């Protein structure tokens, strides 16, 4: 199984969710108002979305903005920590890769 959100119907905190939709590299992904971008991605079953310098996959690690593993581009803004940015309906998220950074040797 993959990461997921606790269904509102069985949540002890008694939520009343409002759906939202963002795009990730152009593809629509459904989420819930109040989720972080990382929360939307995880709940949609994605564990990783960024590539390190070697191309190694990265997703959420620390979850509180310390590790910078989860960086994404949101509406054209690079290097946004997905675990700290609240998703907004209509956000265009694109994934980042370190593999293409730097100069060719």
């Amino acid at each position, binding site marked *: 199984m993959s990461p997921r959100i606790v269904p509102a119907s069985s949540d002890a905190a008694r939520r009343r969710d409002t759906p939202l939709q963002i795009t990730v590299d152009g593809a629509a992904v459904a989420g819930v108002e109040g989720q972080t971008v990382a929360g939307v991605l995880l709940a949609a079953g994605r564990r990783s979305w960024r590539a390190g*310098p070697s191309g190694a996959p990265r997703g959420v690690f620390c979850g509180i903005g310390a590790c910078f593993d989860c960086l994404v581009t949101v509406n*054209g*803004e*690079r*290097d946004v920590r997905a675990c700290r940015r609240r998703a907004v309906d209509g956000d265009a998220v694109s994934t980042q890769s*370190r593999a*293409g*950074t*730097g*100069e*060719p*040797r």
Partner: protein
Amino acid sequence: MGATRVVVLGAGIIGAACARELALAGLAVTVVERGAPAAATTAHGEGNVLVSDKGPGPELDLALLSRRLWPGVLDAVAAHLPEAAAAVEWEPKGGIVVATTAGGARELERFAAAQREAGVTAEPLDAAALAAAEPHLTRDFALAVHYPGDAQVQPAGTATALLADALRAGAVLRAGCEVLGADTAGGRITAVRTSTGTIGADAVVNAAGPWSGETARRLGAPVDVRPRRGEVLVTAPMPPTVFHKVYDADYVGAVGSGAGDLQASAVVESTRAGTILLGSSRRRVGFDERIRPGVLSVIAGKALRLFPSLAGATVMRAYGGFRPYVPDHLPVIGPDPRLDGLWHATGHEGAGIGLSAGTARLLADLMLGRDPAMDPAPFRADRPAVLSEGESR
């Protein structure tokens, strides 16, 4: 009788380069470093190997000499220490100097013409050529000149590679060892007293960068080398955006200025890791290490004038260091006129990384009585700018 014993004070790029030249020439070299090698001024620069920012004169001659020497020096290091040589990250990427005002353009045009006379390749770029060379650079410019001779290195890696080669050639490193004073006999230095013992010496090289003034004072022969503060911003890694060392033509004016207040000028370049380095500032504030948001803000503003599209780039780090500054802006290379056996190799301000190769060669030529690679007279230590009392910190 054994080999001549030389104690090199400082394991920054200048000390490392000098130690290497002298050790390769067969001298018994000990490198004394108060902290750790390549950890102070050397580790806090951008790694400039520049000819573009120097007008005709002795400093340009030293830069041209250094630029000629560098490939051979690095090949020689690589022959024995390939991994250390790789860490140099030698990048002959060339520089592009941009004037954004009509006045600046006239100045740059004159400057480049004089440099060409002195043997520097300096090619004006038209708008199309500039756009091809630097697609993200502002189109709003008055003149751009390409200097294919400019190069970049990873400065700490370069210094440690030179030092490693010196150690391979027999030099000894004493890190964590602070100079306390000199023993002299008959006006001649015979030993250096340090925090970890006395080291006998036939010759001593003061290569302590911005701390050279204090070091020389402890040895009994003060020189007027002062710290000049600089800060650099580092962005998060980005896709390739900047391909040369690109700087604003007003940089030359800022370098040459003696003013104590903030001089700032845009210097923009990328590193192999994908980060972009944004400089540069010059302030005379003693050894005050505080990083000032106001200074960083000025650097950011100037960089955006050249690369407006970097407005969204993330700055993840800032660092600052101290350049060894002499009031007449020339390095000090040569014997001390007051204390026999004491030599100076210091005062390179922000150009020490690039100038280290020529400095080490010239110093070794003088110490060994060889024909000097260039005229050493302009760098002599007995000039008034060096021996004046200087200002108190």
